Each structure stands twice: as C-alpha cells, then as structure tokens.
C-alpha cells in the first residue's frame, strides 16, 4: 500500500461512523427534512468508502471515483423529489413532523 500519511482504515472508520449516525438519525428524528439529511449522510459515507478504496487499493482505475460522482448526482435528484413531496406535505398538513403525518395505521 502506498503511504499517503493517513492509513486507509481511518477513512473506513469515519465512513462507518457516518453511515450509522445516518441510520440512527433516520430512525429517531421527527422532522422530515432532518430525516432526509440523515439519508444524505449515509450516501456521503458511501462516497468516502468508494473514493478511499479507489485511491488506496486500486489507483490505476477510476471506477470508484466515477461511482462516487454518480451517487452525488443521483442523491441530488432524490433530494429534489423528496423536498417537492415534503412541500406538498406541508401544504396539506401545515406541518412536517412525522408524528402528525400518520393518517394510515395498522
């Protein structure tokens, strides 16, 4: 492995922590926008993984970099649709708290 100063493991640890902070946020937050932010956190931890693996382990090909770029683009599209729907929720319920948006139950 090449020596870039910071070993690969550190990147992976940061990415893993970010991912599970995102999962925790998704499950516990009550505000729809914050839930969306938690998902972005998870997607960005994936990007760190891809870029770190690419840079440290397979520097001769750029597959990981491409993947990370496309994940960024798709995450933007996802956020656009999600925010449009959340704005509609706000118009209907005058609220974006998940506990208020529960017309359907078991």
């Amino acid at each position, binding site marked *: 492995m090449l020596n870039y100063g910071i070993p690969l493991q550190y990147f992976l640890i940061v990415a893993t922590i970010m991912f599970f902070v995102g999962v925790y946020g998704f499950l516990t937050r009550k505000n729809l926008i914050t839930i969306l932010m938690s*998902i972005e956190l998870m*997607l960005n931890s994936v990007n760190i993984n891809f870029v770190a693996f690419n840079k440290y382990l397979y520097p001769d090909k750029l597959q990981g970099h491409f993947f990370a770029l496309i994940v960024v683009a798709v995450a933007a599209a*996802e956020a656009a649709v999600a925010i449009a*729907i959340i704005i509609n929720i706000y118009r*209907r319920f005058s609220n974006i708290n998940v506990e208020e948006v529960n017309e*359907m139950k078991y």
Partner: protein
Amino acid sequence: MALSDFLLMRNELLLTLIAIIIVVAELAFSPQKQHKIVSMTLWLFFAITIAGFIPAAKGVLFGGMFHNSELTILMKNILNIAVLIVFIQSYSWIKKPENNYKIAEYFLLIVSTLIGMNFMISSGDFLMFYLGLELATIPVAALAAYDRYKNKSAEAGVKLILSSALSSAILLYGISMIYGSTGSIYFAEVVPRISSNPLQTLAFIFFFAGMAFKISLVPFHLWAADVYEGAPINITSYLSVVSKGAAVFIFTIILFTVFSPVMAMWKDVLYIISILTMTVGNLFALRQQNMKRFLAFSSIAQAGFILLGIIDGSQFGMTSVIYFVLIYVFSNLGAFGVVAAISNVTGKETMSDYNGFYRTNPKLSLVMMLSLFSLAGIPPVAGFFGKFFLFASAAHQGYYWLVFIAVLNATISLYYYLMPVKAMFINKSDSPIVFFRSDGMTRLGLLICVAGMVVVGFASAIYEYIRMLSFGG
C-alpha cells in the same frame, strides 16, 4: 463500435423516444386537448409492446455495462405487457376532468421508470444497475403523491421516497464493500473474487437488505401497505406488479450470477426470509378490510412464494420465477382492475361494500373471483401452475420442510382470498353497489387479464419457451 450496435438497446431507445414525444405533445396540445395524449400514448406503447417480440441480437455494449440476451428481452416483454394493461386500465381514471392538467406527467413518469427497469435488467455492472434502480424508484414516489389534494396520497409519497432512499443507501454501502474487496464493479470481474470472507459476507447482507426493501420482503415490508393504500389505485397496481416484478428479476439475476460462489450462504438467508414473508404477509392480510391494503399484504405474501423459486439456485428455479411473475401480472392486475373500476365509479374500497355485488354486477364479480382464485392457486386458472412449479423447484433441491410450510401458507391464504368472494356472492346487503356498465377500455383490460390467466396456464408452449430461454441464456 458501429452505430448499428445501438440496436441492442432497441427497447430502451424506443421508450426514450416515447418519453420525448409525450413531453413535446404536452407542449403542443392546448389545455383543452390534453386528453388526446392518452390515446396517442396507448397506441405508441402498443406498437412498442409488439416490436418487443421481433427477434433481436444478443450482445454486449459499453465494455460490458449493458448486455442483452434472449432472457432479458423476455423479461422486458413481460414488463411491457404489464405496463400496457396498466395503461388500458387507467384510461377512464386519467380522463377524469380533475386529472386533465397532469395527464402527460402520469405517462412520462411511468415510461421513465420502465426505462430504468429495462436498464436495470440489462445491467452488466453495479453502476448501471444502481442508475437503473434509481430511475425506476424515484419517479414512482412522485406517482404515489399524484393526487395532490389528498392527504393520504402525499403521505404515501413521502413514505415511499424516504424508505426507498434509505434502502438505496444501504444497498450502496454493500456495493462499496464489494468494490473495496474485489477491485471492480463489473459483474464478470467480481464473480471470481467473491468468497465467504467476513467483509464480503457483510457486503452481501447490506446488498440483500437493500434489495429486500424494494421487493418488500418481511423485515423490510413496513412501507408497502401504507404506500399501496395511499397511492391512487392504478398506481398501486403498477407498484405491486411492475415495480415488484422488475426487482424480482434483477434480484434473481444478481443472486444467480454475482453471488453464485456463495450460494450456500444466501440459500440459508432466503430460507428464513421466505418463511417469514409468507407467514407475516398472510397473517396481516387476514385482518384487512380496505381492499387496497388487502391486496398489498397479499402481494407481500406472494413475494415470499417467489423466493421458493429463487432458493432453487438453478435454471429450473429461474424458469419457475419468470413463469410465476408472468401469471402474477395477469392475476394481480385482474384483481386491481376490478377494484379500480368499482372505486372509480363509486369511490368504495372496503370489503363490506362488496356485499351482494354479484347480484348487481355479475361479470365484474366473476373476473374478481377468477383473479383471486388465480392468486390463491386454485387449479383451473394459471395461478395453480405458477405455484406448482415454484414448489417443485424448491422440492427439487430437497427443501421439503420449506415446501410444507409454503403449502400451509397457501391454505391460510385461501381463507382470506375467499373473503371478498364470499362477500360478493353469498353475503346480502341492503344497499349493494348499484349496477354500472364499465367503459370499453376497462373491459378490454380485464379481458386481457382473464385471457392471460387461462391461456398461460394451459398453453404449455409458454412454459417450454421460458424454460428453453432460461437454460440457453
């Protein structure tokens, strides 16, 4: 690479063309003439469905990112037929005056998800797979929130987009670990480097969880019932048939190719998930009163049965999965078609409203009965043969206990599939749904479903054809 090589993507290119035509037509037609888009799209889509059956070349494009075989073309054709039926069934709903200003959106969003599904099925690497998957899921959330002025529809949309974004993130985390441990995202290069070392096992678990969200297998099924209930009913039928069918196809392909070196591991996972999915789906379906929720849980249980075919892990399993999905398309769309016809005319969606329905609308009741019998797997209709081959492929590998539990579950499912039939044929009601004559397109859609349910079951040529392609491709 010659220009003619692009003909390998024939179906995708034609669908993209339709999407562009719809956008241009929306701009070209004045607001009073927007309804012309409906019949125009129907004819164009009919032409594409026919064109899909013209034999096409096999091959690989873009250095292995996109590959086309007879099997993938067959899968795309099944999805095309399903979408055509959905379009025919939504004809009278989309022509309602309140939908006039958003006709083009409906068709555009459905066609773009179909493009995504086609690329997903044909994908040869994880990048194309991920792009196709996202193109197939993001517009569906916009579709679920289609009824802008209904609270339930908005709620369904937000539940769908958030849970599908979560599942994509989980899936991507798995893909990133696969990339890290194998050094490639191409399926062909990944396969020889997959083993059951801890990192790749973890990657597989993340990948599996992400896909299980999309197919709504049991620990990950919680979004399905709410989304199915809240979305407009024609979109619910699209979600439960086409989206699920495409996800099942690609899930089967990836398990059979990329994860074939760790087959023993995923068979154990599927064994448990299959039992859970069948049982939980059935038990929850028992207590549903809303017809859309009822069909949602029934489709969760059906996904559990499909896993019986995947667990086989051989070409025989692939055949039975494709055959079952083909039958599932006709039977589920038949049931949804009747529920949609009733809901569009009267707005009634609960099971008790169906009391005495046979006396006022005998033909619709018969179609509903046939579809429910097919879903339950009662012999004269095709559903029986679909379930039979699924059970046979699991028994083929010696999973006798699994088949036994599946048969028990099929018996439980018989009870709740007969509940609406009992309501329609036996229960009496003081105020039954009055007689109505559904319009020509609804009847055409239901006719195709009934014909499909009968023909696919009895014409063994169809099964033999799928079998030949599964073993050849």
